[in-house]
């Protein structure tokens, strides 16, 4: 028998579910315990932010919201590994990564609260990132196009996109990794495999034993990572970003995690999955293992946890207030950004809509 091609997919994990080190070669960044505490703090603030968002929705102060509960290690790992000059193309759940890059909670609330200004991220580097992409996986091609622009201009920048396990079924994902492989583009495509695409489980998305291996067909580097272990996520991301930045091509990362919440606040996951499965997933969730590890290293304790939670509460309350105090845009705002300059024909429509609005007051 002649073998035309052979491949294997590495699985990367440093901390098990209890926070025990499963290998000794910890990456450099993990030896900086102050930094690891910073990562933990952002994971915790992401969780506080998420709970606040759901509370806002349940009290009628927010529209439909997509929770990130359980994804904290994956998301913060992605955001913390990227350099400011890189570009991020998220879907609509990756708040941990986005908060790291300067998206403000009030902007998330604005967007899910029905106001386009939530996409007008004010702080760098988020300001040059893409806004949430609602049509699944389309952002992968926007990242590939960004990577192509960087390559053409000779810029040492990387484009990162995230999709879910469901998103990895879409042509846009395949198109993006295919383009990246064909042209050696600095693209890192991260599949956040949280096991569920609304009600459809991972096994119905694909017969492939790993989603990471989809990148093999595109000629990319592929790895599967424990997505609840931030050390593993961050390490895999750093390596992928370095390779891309050095002109060694793109990567596909599969971060294996679990969506602990509903798909969105409009969803009820009890309709399609059992409590046992969710309980099992809670035992492997990402906060506990990092907390155990930090406590063992004596850089974190209950008092610090409570103090930081209180700070987060205050931070989020400020953000919520800023959001709730935001006045609705004037009616003309629906016209203002349709084109760079309002065409004469559209100006007439705007004036008509404005006159109706004035009549109504």
């Amino acid at each position, binding site marked *: 028998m002649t073998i035309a091609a052979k491949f294997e997919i590495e699985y990367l994990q440093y901390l098990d579910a209890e926070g025990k080190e499963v290998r000794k070669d910890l990456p450099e960044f993990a030896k900086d315990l102050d930094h690891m505490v910073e990562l933990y703090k952002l994971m915790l603030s992401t969780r506080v932010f998420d709970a606040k968002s759901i509370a806002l929705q349940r009290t009628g102060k927010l529209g439909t919201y997509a929770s990130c509960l359980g994804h904290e290690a994956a998301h913060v790992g992605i955001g913390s590994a990227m350099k400011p000059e890189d570009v991020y193309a998220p879907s609509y759940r990756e708040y941990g990564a986005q908060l790291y890059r300067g998206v403000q909670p009030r902007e998330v609330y604005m967007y899910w609260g029905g106001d386009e200004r939530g996409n007008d991220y004010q702080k760098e580097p988020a300001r040059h990132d893409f806004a949430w992409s609602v049509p699944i996986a389309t952002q992968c091609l926007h990242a590939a196009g960004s990577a*192509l622009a960087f390559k053409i201009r000779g810029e040492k920048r990387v484009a990162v996109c995230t999709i879910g396990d469901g998103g990895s079924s879409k042509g846009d994902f395949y*198109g993006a990794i295919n383009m990246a492989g064909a042209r050696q583009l600095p693209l890192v495509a991260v599949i956040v495999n949280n096991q569920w695409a609304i009600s459809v489980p991972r096994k119905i998305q694909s017969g492939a034993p790993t989603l990471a291996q989809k990148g093999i067909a595109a000629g990319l580097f592929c790895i599967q990572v424990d997505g609840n272990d931030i050390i593993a996520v961050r390490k895999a991301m750093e390596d992928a970003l370095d390779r891309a930045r050095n002109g060694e091509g793109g990567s596909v990362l599969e971060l294996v995690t679990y969506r602990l919440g509903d798909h969105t606040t409009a969803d009820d996951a009890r309709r399609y999955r059992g409590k046992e499965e969710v309980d099992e997933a809670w035992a492997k969730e990402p906060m506990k293992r990092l907390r155990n590890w930090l406590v063992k290293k004596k850089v974190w304790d209950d008092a610090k946890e409570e103090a930081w939670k209180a700070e987060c509460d205050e931070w989020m309350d400020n953000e919520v207030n800023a959001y709730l105090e935001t006045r609705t845009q004037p009616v003309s705002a629906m016209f203002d950004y349709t084109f760079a300059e309002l065409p004469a024909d559209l100006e007439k429509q705007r004036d008509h809509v404005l006159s109706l609005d004035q009549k109504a007051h």
Partner: protein
Amino acid sequence: MAQITLIEAVTQALAYEMAHDESVVVLGEDVGVNGGVFRATQGLQEKFGEWRVIDTPLDEMTIAGVTVGMAVQGMKPVAEAQFEGFIYPMMEHIACHAARMRNRTRGRLTVPAVWRAPWGGGIRAPEHHSEANEHLFTNIPGLRVVMPSSPARAYGLLLAAIRDPDPVMFFEPKRIYRQYKEEVPDDGEALPLDVCFVLRDGTDVTLVSWGAQVKEALEAADALAAEGISAEVIDVATLTPLDFDTIAESVAKTGRCVIVHEAPKTAGFGAEIAARLAEECMYDLLAPVERVTGPDTHIPLFRLEMKYLPSVERVVDAAKRTLAAS
């Protein structure tokens, strides 16, 4: 000065803009060494290299999505859809992202991109190579839909499309790609994207068209002139945003209007013009507005396609009906 065809004018405009603005890149299937299946990008890769004239994998969705990404990063990509019948996989990126990026980010991110596509029937091409589907794009906010009808307008409008800060669909009527030549100075002068062009003055009836059908409209005007009927001919050129004022002024003068287009009649872009005439010009009209269009069928394979496309005779007959009505 050289006389050039419409497709040579497309090439000339691309070459001019690429030479003067290094953020302009061309991408698509077979646009590189092969110069495009119609040769619209002939010689460009030799001149500008394979990273500015980019052969992509064979996937329209990839071309469209990558175009959005490049444009957001400040490049000015000009993407080619090999035929308008293959543009459908591109539409999600055009409608859901390119056309709404500025709006949904409050101007933070923009998509200054152009999608070129050979458009329409009449060249005895295989199935899916002869569609007229511009009306599927004219209902998308935030998008300009442009169609030239002569070499000079192809050059000037394509330059304008590339320089425009918003996304533009640029449909090239392939039936007249090589129909005739005219002098097109390579002076980098763009034409405005916000006006219709009055190609022929007249007083009795207004013939409104765009793309390849402008030829039939002009020939119909000649035929009508021979019978003492004075027809004004308007090339809409930029369908959206529409310069309706030019059409309204003409109809205020003639009182009659015939709209000619290749696409199916129902909800074709002619329906929009007819509706606007009814809304805004009712009291100027001396006769019902006529539409001469393709029927609401698929364009047939090529043995029958010329029976589908609006003919000069149909345009002349429609114009005469408007005259007979008053």
